C-alpha cells in the first residue's frame, strides 16, 4: 500500500455523534492512528440509533451511522467517570499528537479536557474542541445542541424558506460536515506549526462561526447595507432562471441555472423556441432576472411530466447548466460517483456487504485511503492498553473486572 499522508500521527479521540467523528474519519483515512475512547456508561448514540440498524440487527457493532462516520479507527473501552479511567486517558494523551472532543462545554470541563489541563500533561499537544457556538463567550458557550441548531442561531433557517413563509430547516446535518473539513485544514496547519516550532495550541471550533464565514453575501449585505436577507428561496443575485422545477414521478425535480444569453438561447432551443420566450420580458439577463416569477411559471409547465435525469442530460448536452435532484437510491447507483471513486464497499462481519461514502477528494499519489472496517466496541483494548500503555494481561483483566475498562 502506498504511503499515507499522516502515518505516525496519533489522535486520542473523545468525540461522538457526527462532527467530531467526521474529523477523525478524515485523519484515519489519511493514515493517522485514531483511538476512539468509548464506554458502555454512555455509548456513542450512533451505535444505537434504531433508524440505521443493518436489516434490523440491534448490535452496537452494526449500526449504519456509526459505520459511515467511524471506519478506519480503533476503539477502546474506558470509563472516564472512574479516577483510574481518567488517568489512563491522560496517559494516552501524553503519547498523542492530537486530542479531539466535541462534548458540550460543561461536560468537557467535568471530564478535565480543557487546554490548560492537557497542556500540563503534554506541552505541545494540539486540542481540537468542536462545539455548537464556541467554548468561550457568553451563555451559548454552555449550550447543548446538534449541528442544525448552529444554522438556526446564525440566520440560515430564517434566510431559508419561501417568500412570506416561516423559517425552514436546511438539509440534514450539513453544518456538522461543514465544520469538519474546515477543522481538518486548520488542524493540519497547527500540526505543521508544531513540527516547525514545537508549539501546540487549542482549536476552538464553533459550527455557528463556520456557517457565518461560509455565508458571506448575507453577512456582507447586512454589514454594507443594513439589509437582512430573509426567506430568499432559490433567488440568485444574478442568474435567472435559477430554481428547481417539478418533473414526472413522486417528488422528482430538476435544477436549472442560466447565467448568460448563450445559455438562455440554448435552453430556448431545447424547449423548441416557444412563442413566450420571445416576450420582451425575457430579453436579456437583467430582464429575465426582473421577471423571474413569470419565467419560472412557464418553465414549470414545460418540465412537468418530463423525466428528471433524462431532461438534465439533454439540457447539459445543449450547454445549459442543469441537474436532477437525486434521491438516496439514485445516488447509490450514480455512475459518476462510482467511476470517480466516491463509494467503497465494506464487508463487515456482522453487517455484511454495505456501500459507504469515502473521502470526497482524490490525491494522485495516494490511490487508496485507509478504508478498514469500523471497529467493534472495545476491539482494540489489548492493542492499546498493552501495546501503547504497557499494561499487563492481568492488569487489563483487573481493570475490566472493576469496570474501568468498560
Amino acid at each position: 500500500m502506498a504511503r499515507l499522508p499522516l502515518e505516525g500521527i496519533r489522535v486520542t479521540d473523545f468525540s461522538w455523534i457526527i462532527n467530531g467523528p467526521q474529523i477523525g474519519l478524515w485523519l484515519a483515512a489519511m493514515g493517522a492512528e485514531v483511538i476512539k475512547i468509548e464506554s458502555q456508561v454512555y455509548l456513542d448514540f450512533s451505535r444505537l440509533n434504531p433508524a440505521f440498524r443493518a436489516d434490523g440487527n440491534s448490535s452496537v457493532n452494526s449500526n449504519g451511522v456509526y459505520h459511515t462516520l467511524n471506519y478506519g479507527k480503533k476503539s477502546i473501552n474506558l470509563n472516564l467517570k472512574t479516577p483510574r479511567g481518567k488517568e489512563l486517558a491522560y496517559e494516552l494523551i501524553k503519547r498523542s499528537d492530537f486530542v479531539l472532543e466535541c462534548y458540550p462545554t460543561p461536560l468537557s470541563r467535568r471530564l478535565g479536557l480543557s487546554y490548560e489541563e492537557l497542556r500540563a500533561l503534554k506541552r505541545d499537544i494540539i486540542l481540537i474542541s468542536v462545539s455548537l457556538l464556541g467554548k468561550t463567550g457568553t451563555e451559548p458557550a454552555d449550550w447543548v445542541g446538534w449541528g442544525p441548531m448552529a444554522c438556526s442561531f446564525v440566520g440560515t433557517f430564517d434566510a431559508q424558506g419561501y417568500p412570506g413563509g416561516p423559517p425552514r430547516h436546511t438539509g440534514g446535518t450539513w453544518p456538522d460536515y461543514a465544520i469538519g473539513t474546515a477543522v481538518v485544514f486548520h488542524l493540519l496547519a497547527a500540526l505543521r506549526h508544531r513540527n516547525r516550532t514545537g508549539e501546540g495550541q487549542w482549536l476552538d471550533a464553533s459550527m455557528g462561526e463556520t456557517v457565518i464565514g461560509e455565508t458571506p453575501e448575507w453577512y456582507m449585505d447586512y454589514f454594507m447595507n443594513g439589509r437582512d436577507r430573509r426567506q430568499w428561496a432559490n433567488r440568485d443575485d444574478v442568474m435567472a432562471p435559477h430554481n428547481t422545477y417539478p418533473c414526472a414521478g413522486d417528488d422528482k425535480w430538476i435544477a436549472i441555472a442560466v447565467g448568460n444569453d448563450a445559455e438562455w438561447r440554448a435552453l430556448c432551443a431545447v424547449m423548441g423556441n416557444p412563442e413566450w420566450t420571445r416576450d420582451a420580458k425575457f430579453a436579456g439577463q437583467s430582464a429575465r432576472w426582473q421577471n423571474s416569477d413569470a419565467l419560472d411559471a412557464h418553465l414549470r409547465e414545460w418540465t412537468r411530466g418530463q423525466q428528471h435525469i433524462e431532461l438534465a442530460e439533454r439540457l447539459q448536452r445543449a450547454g445549459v447548466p442543469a441537474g436532477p435532484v437525486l434521491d438516496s437510491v439514485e445516488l447509490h447507483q450514480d455512475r459518476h460517483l462510482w467511476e470517480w471513486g466516491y463509494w467503497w464497499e465494506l464487508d463487515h462481519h456482522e453487517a455484511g456487504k454495505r456501500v459507504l461514502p469515502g473521502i470526497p477528494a482524490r490525491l494522485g499519489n495516494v490511490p487508496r485511503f485507509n478504508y478498514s472496517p469500523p471497529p467493534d466496541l472495545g476491539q482494540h483494548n489489548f492493542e492499546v492498553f498493552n501495546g501503547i500503555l504497557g499494561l499487563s494481561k492481568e492488569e487489563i483483566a483487573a481493570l475490566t473486572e472493576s469496570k474501568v475498562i468498560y
Partner: protein
Amino acid sequence: MAAAALDDLKIVEYAGMVSGPMCGKLFADMGAEVIKIEPPGVGDEARSHPPFPADLPHPEKSGLYLYLNTSKKSLTLDPAAPRGAEIFKRLVRDADILLENHPPGHMHRLGLGYEVLHALNPRLIVTSVTPFGQSGPYAGWKGTDLIEWAMSLTGYNTPTLVNDPAAENPLRAPGRQADMMGATTAAAATMMALFHREATGLGQWVDVGCWQAVVNTAKIEMAVYSYAGMPYSRLRANTKAGLEPSRCRDGYVYVLWVVDSHFEALKELLGHPAALEADLFNDTAQRAEYDDALRPLIQQELLKYDMDWLVREGQKIGLPIGPVLTVAQAAEHPHLRARGAFVEIDHPVAGRFRYPGPLVRLTATPPTARRAPLLGEHNEDILCGRLGCSREEFAGLRAAGVI
C-alpha cells in the same frame, strides 16, 4: 504579533468566483503568500457580484470579492497569451501549490496541464476544484452552486420536512454551500498532499468536486437506505435527524427530541402535559413512528411560551433548544460579538466594514484577514521585483493586454 502557521508557503491561485478563492483565502489568512491571477481588465467575476455598498456596482467594492480574497496579492495576467503562459510557468516554478477552478481540460489546452507543470516543478501540488471533478460522466457538465447542491441529498432534503411537496420545491441553502464544501474539502486535501510531500519529496494532483463534497454531507440519510433498506424521503424525514423550527409565542425555536433524555427534558420544560406522557412516545423509534401525532402536541405547548424563556430554561435542564434568529440579529448578538466572530477591515476604495471572522479559532496561530487587493495591485512588485522584468518589458506586457 502571533505567529502564522503557513508563512513559508507560496501559492498561485488561478481561480475565480467562490470555490477556488475561498480555498485560497484559508491559506492566505494563515500566512501563506497567495498570488491571485485575475483576467486583465475585468478581474475575477466575483468583482461584479453583489452585495455592493448602497447597491452601486464597482469592481473594488463587491462584498463577495472583498471577503473571499483577503490577505492575497493580485496579478492581472492572461495565461492564454504566449507571454502570459511563460510568466505563469515562472510563477509556478518556485511555488508550493497551484490552485485552480477551471473546467476540466482548460489547463491542458493552455499548455499548462498537470504533466507540464509537474515537469517544471516536481514538488508542486496542483489542486483543481471543479463542479464534478476531473473524470466521470459529469466531468464535462456545467455546474453552478444551485446545480451541485440540488443534486445532493442535502439539497433534496431542504427544507427537511414538507407537508405539501408540490408547493415546496427543494431549496438552495443561503449562500453557496456546495462551493464552500468544495473549498474547504480542497483546502483539507491540499494540506494532506503537503504532508505527503514532506515524506516523499513529490507534489501531486488533488482533484475535488464540489458536488461530491456536498453529497458527503448527507452520509446519515444515505445510511438509512444502505443499512435499513429505506429510501430516504423528505415526506417522512425518516432519520428524524433534522426537523423544522417550531413556533413559540413570539417567534420560532429549534428543538430536538430524538434522544430519550432530551424528550424527558422537553416534557419537564413544558410542565409534563398529560398528552406527551402517552406510552406511544416512550422511545426514539416509537417517537419517529408516531411523529405525525407527537409534533402537533408539542407545537401546541410551545405556543404558550416566549423564545427567550424556552431557550434559557430548556438549556438549564440539558434540552437542545435554540432561538431562530435572523442574520441581522446574529450579527448583533452579544455572544458572537464577545467572541469576536466579526472583524473590521478597512479598504482604500470600498471603505471600512465588518466581515465574518475566521471559520475556526486557533490560539497560537490565529487566522488573520488583511484587506483584499485592488485589481492588479501587485503587478509591478511581482513582475519587476520577483521575476526581474525590466521597465520596458513591463510596459510592453501592459500595452499588449497580457497584464
